């Protein structure tokens, strides 16, 4: 049995539930074969991947849904051997180059260039080109992006790239200039509610509006999260009740508690304790930006505006450092220590002010 997120994933552009105008435009776009490379960007859970899958189907028909998962061996210039997971059909191949870590440039050089150079497998198909889908382009190194540049131009008649990323901030101008940007905004709250209701209807359930609203509030316009929460509500109690409280993913609760314990006491002992919790979060693969953001949201709640500004500045400073070093926990801890320091001073000062 598949999860609702997969079960109710629309399969074609005309079935997409929101941003219908855009879906229509994309349909127009692929009618003629001369469209440029695409750069699809938007927040996570907004449905970028679904849209791309639909686009591929529009291009090649149901044949693209026959997927193979393979791992392809790649040799780096220094002689190291790597295996890269790919998902492909006869018409397209999908890779996440950041799987290869610092060797992402080799993936681009070997895999992408090779597939661009070879030509379409299926001579009876209606398209002369195939598609290479690269995910998580945000984390592609600058070197790897450079390696894409000329490949994108040289083989454009036989291969189109679809790049998927959360934001275009990190994509170098030379790549942006080679692509058509497709912005996928997160669905609005109303759109999510109607999608949830539709899914429930198909499951033979009725979803009380109040509960739907609660779910949407907690999901922060992330459709994937909303569907998962809705499904877990079903598991918790069927039929669905108005009074039910949607459960947040466990790590979110854990993160909130961590922030509270930082506010509660500022001491080396407490820092040790927090450290354990941070490790716990990281070992569950929670992205470090999310931890920073989650902590910050709670931590500023008791500060005045001036202090808020200082705390935000520190968070921005330390989070940036994460990307320069290789060990995120250091900077996360440093931030917590810094916060404890500032906050304690602030509290002491305000006690003095009272007298």
């Amino acid at each position, binding site marked *: 049995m598949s999860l609702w997120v997969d079960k109710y994933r629309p399969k074609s552009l005309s079935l997409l539930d929101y941003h219908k105008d855009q879906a229509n435009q994309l349909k127009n776009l692929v009618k003629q074969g001369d469209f440029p490379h695409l750069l699809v960007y938007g*927040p996570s859970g907004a449905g970028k991947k679904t849209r791309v899958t639909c686009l591929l189907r529009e291009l090649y028909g149901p*044949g693209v849904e026959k997927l193979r998962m393979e791992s*392809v061996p790649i040799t780096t210039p220094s002689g190291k051997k790597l295996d890269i997971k790919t998902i492909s059909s006869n018409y397209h191949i999908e890779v996440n180059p950041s799987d290869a870590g610092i060797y992402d440039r080799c993936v681009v050089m070997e895999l992408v260039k090779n597939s661009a*150079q070879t030509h379409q497998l299926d*001579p*009876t198909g209606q398209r002369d080109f195939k598609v290479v889908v690269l995910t998580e382009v945000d984390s592609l190194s600058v070197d790897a992006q450079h390696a894409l540049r000329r490949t994108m131009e040289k083989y454009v008649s036989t291969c189109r790239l679809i790049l998927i990323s959360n934001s275009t901030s990190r994509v170098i101008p030379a790549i942006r200039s080679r692509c058509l940007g497709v912005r996928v905004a997160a669905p609005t709250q109303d759109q999510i509610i109607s999608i949830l209701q539709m899914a429930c209807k198909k499951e033979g359930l009725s979803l009380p509006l109040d509960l739907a609203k609660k779910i949407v509030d907690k999901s922060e316009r992330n459709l994937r999260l909303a569907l998962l929460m809705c499904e877990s509500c079903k598991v918790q109690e069927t039929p669905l009740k108005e009074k039910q409280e949607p459960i947040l993913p466990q790590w979110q609760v854990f993160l909130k508690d961590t922030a509270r314990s930082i506010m509660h006491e500022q001491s080396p002992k407490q820092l040790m304790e927090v450290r354990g919790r941070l490790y716990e979060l990281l070992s569950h693969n929670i992205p470090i930006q999310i931890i920073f953001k989650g902590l910050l949201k709670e931590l500023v709640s008791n500060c005045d505006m001036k202090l808020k*500004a200082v705390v935000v500045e520190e968070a*921005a400073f330390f989070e*940036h450092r994460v990307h*320069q070093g290789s060990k995120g926990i250091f900077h996360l801890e440093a931030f917590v220590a810094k916060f404890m320091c500032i906050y304690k001073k602030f509290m002491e000062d305000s006690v003095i002010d009272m007298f």
Partner: protein
Amino acid sequence: MQSFLKTGKLGSGSGAGPSGDKQSGKGQKRGNRPTPWVEKYRPKTVDDVVEQGDVVEVLRQCLSGADLPNLLLYGPPGTGKTSTILAAARQLFGDMYRDRILELNASDERGIQIIRDKVKSFAQLSASGIRPDGKPCPAFKIVILDEADSMTHAAQAALRRTMEKQTRTTRFCLVCNYVSRIIQPLTSRCTKFRFKPLGEVKIIERLQFISSQENVNIEQDALQSLIAAAGGDLRRAITCLQSCARLKGKDDTSAITPDDVVEVMGVIPSRWIDGLMSVSEEFDYYKVTEYLDQFIMEGYSAGQLLEQLHLKIVMCDTISDKHKATICEKLAVCAYRLQEGASEYLQMADLCCTLMLCLRQ
């Protein structure tokens, strides 16, 4: 996957494959592959190159028999660097193009070893001054190092010797975006040409030419906002023009409007920028973060926001110079951090705090 890769290199016969879904009546002509307009309208000769007069002049002289210096072409994306040198090479060598040109770009391995071996062995072969068809052509070969700014300094240093030794048979042409990334000993061996962002008039001319070729109908305002957003990058302008035309669909013959252009170019509608300023003035942290969350949910890019906000701040006459400086400094820091992959939310929150403190009075 393996079968996906092993279908023969380009140009070889057709690979046999399982027949997929065939939609009759939609077939396209083989051999006439549809290419995006940027490639379709890539200059074929140096005379087609728009603007960039100096280089074109040097290359034109070379075409009529003069010697060619080593070249270093640099400038922002989409200004015609690669196109110019490739067009010149084609014109110079015609059919012998493959023997006389070695093109290495960032997608090729370009370590020290490759520079030493591949470039050297290519450069050592002598070149005659006559084409097979009897026409004269320059008696040298050209090594084009495209995207040279992504070469390591060690590899660039290795190039130094090779360049000096092979002056008799080979010319080098380095192409890059940032000339500061090329080591000084190399730049001093080349004649430098800066490719300027293309002027508005030239871009308009080119776009109008393409529009008439492709039967595109575009409003004058739309053309203006397209050019403003492209900022001298002709490739981006052409891509945008084509995308606007294609997104509309074949049957829709209405003209392209400025709104279409704004969306395709990824420009943030000005109400979002104004909104950010006014919500910052209200001096309420939660309202600001709420606004930021909404902004991120819409999928707009923080990098673009910084650019547009920068313009707005600099032009604004209700902010004191001192505050402008403070804000711009923060803008610069945030832009740098974003480039390195820092979280958009945190950087924008940091920026907004500065805005709030500066705008309150």
